């Protein structure tokens, strides 16, 4: 079994999911949940595909997709922050709207062949045995996913802005009392998160899956939301969750040859898994593992930002 090739495909397949989950992590860390993720993913995938198709260049597609993701996030940010609309309600309605819009507007483009992201192995590094194949023999999308994880980690834990994000998501009144413009920052980070989700969408239609159809994103947007929780809003943990998921997907794919029935189950399989994963991380015995290995606590416990999902008002 060619492990380096397998790992390579896991890394590549997980790239869009990483972009989406990292984006959502940023948004939720600041306190805003974007429940429309699956819808944003689909609509931006469709728009990205069509834009690249018309312009003849994948980059245009990515830009357009990013705008769509950012736009949807802006609606959520505006509705929640300025008008105090409940995040879940707004996110859900936007999910339905985006999904239906993607079907409606994308219908004429199903089956078309569009643009594609060209492979870009890094010269020199990609020749390193094993590691080179796994990490450096990819395209810009995958490298982008690496960058997203690293940049977010650095932002969260090594910068002032990152500490501020923690503050506004944990206890906005406290941050506000320190002179931090809570709502303005939440707006910004939500939109940034949405832009990343948009990029992820384009990654599906222009890189990993190619083309546009309704089932393109396989409802992975919902899985992404769960991975953010599973990864306890920490970019590295979240990324690991994505790779784990990618590995399961690749494994299931390979199993298709062994067990023919698997193909039918494939689209559904992630979801019971998602439920099991969520049950596990909250389960008593799992939490108590953190007591036995205090060093590992940060990796085992799930600690949501204290004020996630809430609306911050001055008075």
């Amino acid at each position, binding site marked *: 079994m060619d492990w380096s090739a397998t790992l390579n495909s896991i890394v590549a397949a997980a790239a869009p999911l990483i972009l989406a989950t990292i984006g959502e992590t940023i948004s939720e860390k600041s306190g805003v949940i974007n429940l429309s993720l699956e819808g944003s993913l689909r609509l931006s995938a469709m728009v990205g595909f069509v834009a690249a198709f018309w312009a003849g260049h994948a980059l245009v597609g990515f830009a357009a997709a990013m705008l769509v993701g950012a736009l949807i996030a802006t609606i959520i940010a505006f509705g929640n922050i300025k008008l105090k609309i409940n995040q879940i*309600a707004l996110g*859900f309605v936007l999910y*339905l709207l985006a999904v*239906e819009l993607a079907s*409606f507007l994308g219908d004429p483009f199903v089956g078309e062949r569009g643009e594609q992201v060209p492979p870009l192995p890094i010269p020199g590094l990609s020749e390193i045995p094993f590691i080179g194949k796994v990490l450096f023999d990819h395209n810009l999308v995958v490298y982008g996913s690496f960058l997203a994880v690293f940049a977010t980690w650095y932002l969260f834990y090594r910068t002032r802005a990152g500490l501020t994000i923690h503050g506004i998501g944990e206890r906005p009144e406290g941050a506000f009392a320190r002179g931090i413009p809570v709502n303005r920052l939440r707006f910004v980070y939500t939109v940034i998160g949405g832009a990343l989700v948009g990029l992820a969408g384009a990654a599906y239609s222009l890189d990993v899956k190619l083309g546009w159809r309704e089932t393109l994103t396989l409802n992975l947007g*919902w899985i992404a939301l769960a991975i953010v*929780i599973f990864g306890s809003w920490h970019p590295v943990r979240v990324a690991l969750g994505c790779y784990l998921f990618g590995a399961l997907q690749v494994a299931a794919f390979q199993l298709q040859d062994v067990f023919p029935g698997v193909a*039918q189950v494939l689209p*559904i399989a992630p*979801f019971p898994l998602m439920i099991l994963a969520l049950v596990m991380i909250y389960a008593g015995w799992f939490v108590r593992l953190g007591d036995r290995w205090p060093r590992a606590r940060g990796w085992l416990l799930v600690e949501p930002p204290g004020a996630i999902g809430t609306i911050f008002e001055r008075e």
Partner: protein
Amino acid sequence: MKTRTEFHPLPTILSVLAALVVSVFLLWLTGAPPFEAAGLMLEGAFGSADKIANTLLAWTPLVLASAGLVVTFAAGMWNIGVEGQIVMGAIAASFVAREVPGEAWLVVPLTLVAGVVGGSLWAMLAGVLRTKGHVNEIFGGLGLDFVAAGVAVYLVIGPWSREGTASTSGTDIFREEAWLPTTTMFGTEMPLLAVTLALTATVAVYYLLRGTRFGLRLKAVGQSPRSAFLMGIPNDRYILYAFAVGGALAGIAGAVQATGYHHKLVPSVSGGYGFLGILVVLLAGFSAKWIVPIALFFVTVSVGSTTMELRLGLDSAFGGVLQAVIVLFVMFGTAYATERRRRSKAWSSDP
């Protein structure tokens, strides 16, 4: 989550108008003539006795699912699992329709009971995941939605498949004794029983929440779980009750879909009525009062948009777009009105 009912007529009407404007724009984008499209929509829904019967048959499961959602929302739950509950109700009813012999007076009520059981149990599964497993009901419900859909597909192309084919177009048609009975009126088969079920459910939910101790406690649990607990209300149990009731009604919707509409089990048996029901309830301000007319409006759009697809070549997803746009606009409109009112109160200088 605030699930108290607040209905503002003026902003709602203005928002709906704004949404319609946007929809007209969308139609224009795709080259469809808007007024003709609207006309086709109404004609598709009400153009003949047959069509009215069809519309009513589509309206029933939507109202049932929505009524169930009103109950789960009252308990503060986002019952995203409603789609799966409809499917499970349909599967249970299909099982009865296929396996239980006997005359209609026996089989039909049993299919409805099966629907209740199927939907209710599936919902309680989501409830238990939430109360015992601490899995947010959104993820639990969603996961179960997909599992239920998977089960339906499996049954349709596997054990319950038609002779020779393993196609996803559905099982064999149920024998007529299992069909949900209709009444011959105006030259067509009117689904009076279905409509009665829907209206009864709505009235029952309304009174359940307003006039019973159960309903009041449910509201307490939904709005302030800590206070409810300190008052001696067993929160987890009430959440499960809410899921049981919500799932039961969704299950009946599924049974109606299987035995009343399709007369067989198809993978898409839920018809999207679960998620659409969430939209209905959002628009209705979480109150049972308004779900009947709002559901009728939404069904008109859904049914009408298939006619539009046939005649104008417009993807029927347009109906879904229109529905979602309207809800979005109304959400913004009422939120804006509430904000304005709140601000003017705070700034008023009358002591």
